[in-house]
């Protein structure tokens, strides 16, 4: 293989789904987090770092995940790389949120 999964110009592919999809609150928040973290004045990381992280997803994940689901994984990876959060703290918090949600009536 001489290229990564994102580099798809010229690949055979089917008809284009022109359906309009409104953004969900999840999409908006992930988008906003990236914009804030990659803002040139803040400089926690760059859009290129974000792209690099997305491009390193394996093909199954790349094609199986929705656009902003790829993004949130990249934000996670870069936040850890840059020392903004630890993997352990993140996992703990995800478990706590899951428990909170499960406990809701």
């Amino acid at each position, binding site marked *: 293989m*001489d290229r990564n999964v994102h580099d798809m*110009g010229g690949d055979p592919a089917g008809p284009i789904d022109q359906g309009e999809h409104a953004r969900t609150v999840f999409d908006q928040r992930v988008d906003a987090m990236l914009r804030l973290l990659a803002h040139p004045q803040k400089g926690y990381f760059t859009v290129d770092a974000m792209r690099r992280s997305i491009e390193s997803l394996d093909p199954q994940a790349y094609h199986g995940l929705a656009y902003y689901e790829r993004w949130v994984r990249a934000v996670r990876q870069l936040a850890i790389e840059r020392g903004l959060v630890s993997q352990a703290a993140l996992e703990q918090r995800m478990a706590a949120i899951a428990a909170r949600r499960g406990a809701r009536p």
Partner: protein
Amino acid sequence: MSGAPSPAPLAAGTAVQVRTGAPLTHCRTPQYLRGKRGVVLRALGRYPNPEELAYHRPGMPPLTLYQVEFDAAEVWGERLHEAPYRITADIFEHWLEPAGLPAAAAHDMGASHGRA
């Protein structure tokens, strides 16, 4: 990919060839254009090297970015199945090298000067 940044940008109309290679690390030169010949439309300014920015490096000194135009026939060869058209892409200087004639023209003319 190495090489010092060019002192002056290439002029519009300069024949170039995209380098080959498959770094597999982050880069913004699409695979379908690697090794293809095109013509500089214009220089777009200088930007930090994305191949370094992607790994939290400053990407300095900045590199000149070019909008390069390609003939679809040059890009796709026998895969082309539509009427002729052109493609442009923005390619950093370290991915470009001077080009002779496009393969088809070189074959026809056996000449070595750049195309018009």
